[in-house]
């Protein structure tokens, strides 16, 4: 009963409802404007809303998250520029559709399918999270440690880039997270005897730098990109079209929830994997993939919105973020004095049901804003980058300064911004860095707790891992991810393939 009340909090309090609505509306446009990403927006916002109560702050962020994951699709369809990373796959078939003059159909289908995927993600979150959190109480410190390592490895291995660079990024993030005084023994770590370094590096400065400044600097390369106008007609898709793609959308939603729920990996990876899946299972598309196949829109759009609900599962139950945005939200909850993890679900179940309620509402708002206001949309998206980029940079500076009223944070933010700029150019993923910074404390604490409880004996520690089914599963997963990226694996696969062929 209490959870039902908590679920309806957002519906009964007009100010929260309004914030979710504003957030979703803003999110759709933030997602749609190339150069503004949800991760960037949420990381800048966290520093502005930290003087607010926790409910309004979370309402606004959830709206932006849900709307932003969807919004990227529109620019992908209309301009062939994915407005957000999660819409990269959408551009492959969306833009060809728009070129044929069917931009309206494409937008309609992506909107309804995003709504559908989002709904499945939320449903799975509502049903699964309470079970997972019960299960999570059995987690030993070593399991948390393994899960944190798993999350950092997953991003590197599921993306198209190199695992070595992904691992480097993750380890770098963990190292950044340990800078300052050790909370247990007050030993200085990586401070180089500089007094300023003792308080550590603000993770908000790292985030805004990596996702705000580096993105804005990168956008300077594309300053002169022309915008193409499209005529948009007939948006609401027919019932027949929707029913036809229902089986595929269910499958791709499932992929989305799963990828979202895996620690570290979010909507962008889910969308690409779902697109691949759709290509494999669709035998006779009406049009070939890459030339305007509807399936090529259905798959990534259901998956990336389903991943939103999925990403909240590990965040709410274990305190381990499902993707970069939930990593930032964990930071937001910390700032508001809440500690995400299994105890939060038990001590404050209201918080969980409130978030589920807010997600449901954001999903409805997304449908509403998605099917209306196209004309206004086209105007806003054509906002010149010459104005947009300086504004993003200014907001990043204000955001970094606002958290601690400290100019040092601004310098950190700029430093990480320039570093992130080069990382992007040379193929180092940024997600693992943020994940590493957020998980650093968890990893450090749990490692030390685990090894102290085993009386500093590495042999006993290893035996502990091998004798617990949960730890063993996690350990095997870590090893498998690692091995699957080495030459040994591909050689073994080719040998096996040859044998089967004979």
């Amino acid at each position, binding site marked *: 009963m209490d959870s039902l009340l908590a679920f309806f909090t957002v519906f009964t309090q007009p100010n929260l409802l309004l914030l979710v609505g504003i957030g979703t509306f803003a999110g759709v446009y933030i997602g749609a404007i190339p150069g503004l990403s949800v991760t960037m927006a949420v990381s800048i916002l966290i520093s502005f*809303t930290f*003087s607010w109560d926790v409910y309004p702050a979370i309402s606004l962020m959830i709206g932006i998250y849900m709307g932003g994951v969807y919004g990227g699709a529109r620019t992908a369809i209309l301009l062939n520029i*994915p407005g957000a990373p*999660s819409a*990269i796959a959408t551009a492959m078939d969306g833009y060809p559709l728009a070129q044929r003059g069917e931009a309206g159909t494409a937008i309609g289908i992506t909107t309804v399918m995003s709504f559908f995927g989002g709904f499945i993600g939320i449903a799975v979150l509502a049903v699964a999270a309470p079970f997972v959190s019960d299960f999570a109480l059995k987690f030993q410190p070593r399991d948390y440690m393994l899960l944190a390592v798993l999350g950092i490895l997953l991003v590197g291995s*599921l*993306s*198209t*880039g*190199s695992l*070595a*660079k992904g*691992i*480097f990024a993750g*380890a770098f993030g*963990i*190292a950044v997270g*340990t800078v300052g005084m050790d909370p*247990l023994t007050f*030993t200085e*770590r*990586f401070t180089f005897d500089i007094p300023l370094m003792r308080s550590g590096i603000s993770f908000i400065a790292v985030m805004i730098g990596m996702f705000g*400044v580096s993105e804005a*600097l*990168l956008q*300077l*390369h594309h*300053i002169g990109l022309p915008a193409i106008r499209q005529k948009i007609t007939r948006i609401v898709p027919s019932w027949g079209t929707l029913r036809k793609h229902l089986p595929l959308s269910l499958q791709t939603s499932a992929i989305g929830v799963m990828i979202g729920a895996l620690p570290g990996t979010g909507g*962008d990876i889910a*969308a*690409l994997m779902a697109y691949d899946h759709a290509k494999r299972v669709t035998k006779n598309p009406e049009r070939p993939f890459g030339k305007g196949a509807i399936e090529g829109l259905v798959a990534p759009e259901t998956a990336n919105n389903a991943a939103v609900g999925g990403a909240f599962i590990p965040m709410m139950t274990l305190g381990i973020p499902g993707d970069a945005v939930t990593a930032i939200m964990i930071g937001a909850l910390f700032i508001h004095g809440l500690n995400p993890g299994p105890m939060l679900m038990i001590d404050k179940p209201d918080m969980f049901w409130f978030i589920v309620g807010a997600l449901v509402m954001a999903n409805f708002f997304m449908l509403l804003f998605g099917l209306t206001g196209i004309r206004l949309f086209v105007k806003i998206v054509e906002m010149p980058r*010459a*104005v947009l*980029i*300086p*504004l993003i*940079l200014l907001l990043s500076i*204000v955001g970094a*300064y*606002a958290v601690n009223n400290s*100019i040092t944070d*601004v310098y950190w933010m*700029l430093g990480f*911004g320039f570093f992130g*700029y*080069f*990382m*992007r*150019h*040379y*193929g*180092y*993923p940024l997600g693992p860095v943020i994940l590493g910074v957020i998980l650093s404390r968890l*990893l*450090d604490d749990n*490692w*030390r707790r685990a*090894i*102290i409880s085993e009386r*500093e004996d590495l042999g006993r520690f290893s035996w502990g891992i091998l004798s617990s089914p949960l730890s063993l599963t996690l350990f095997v997963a870590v090893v498998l991810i690692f091995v699957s990226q080495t030459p040994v694996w591909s050689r073994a696969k080719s040998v096996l393939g040859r044998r089967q062929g004979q």
Partner: protein
Amino acid sequence: MQDQDYDNHDGTSDATPGGYPDRRRPGELAFAGVLLAASLYLLYSAYGIAGFEALSSPGAVPMATTVVMVISALVVVVRTARLHTFAKETISGSILPRIVIIFTGLLIAYGVLLKPLGFLPTSALFLVASIRLLSDRSWGFVFAVSAGSLLCIWLIFRIVFTVLMPVGIVPEAEIIQFFRAFVHNGAA
């Protein structure tokens, strides 16, 4: 499809990080080398925290992570060194064009001036300079857009989010007080 690949080389997201799988970009090897050197230095620094004192020492996790950094950086250096450079790209063309260097300078100048000059004048200078640099519109447009957007940002963040930025030379508090008094008197 080839063109698509060239579009995505800048690293838009974690799903598709930048660079090319079979070519190295200009400066990539140097960057990897710098990362390796920095990782080695950090490993040395991590060793200095507690040495090999205990598995649960404050230095254990930093040492483990920096070892991982050194190994992965080494793998990246070796792999990158084996690749051929992508001939069509240059540092000044694709990696660090002049506009990015200029903006880097502008951002540093912003950071230096923020404290002594205050938020409003520094931001105004920054917006005017950067919008003028990026667009070929008239000074009138540049001033109008800069002033308008700065006013919006200031109103939203000062009033709605109550963020206090460095005041510097503009007497913000007095101005706000003046308007408060004005509105108050008007209402009364």
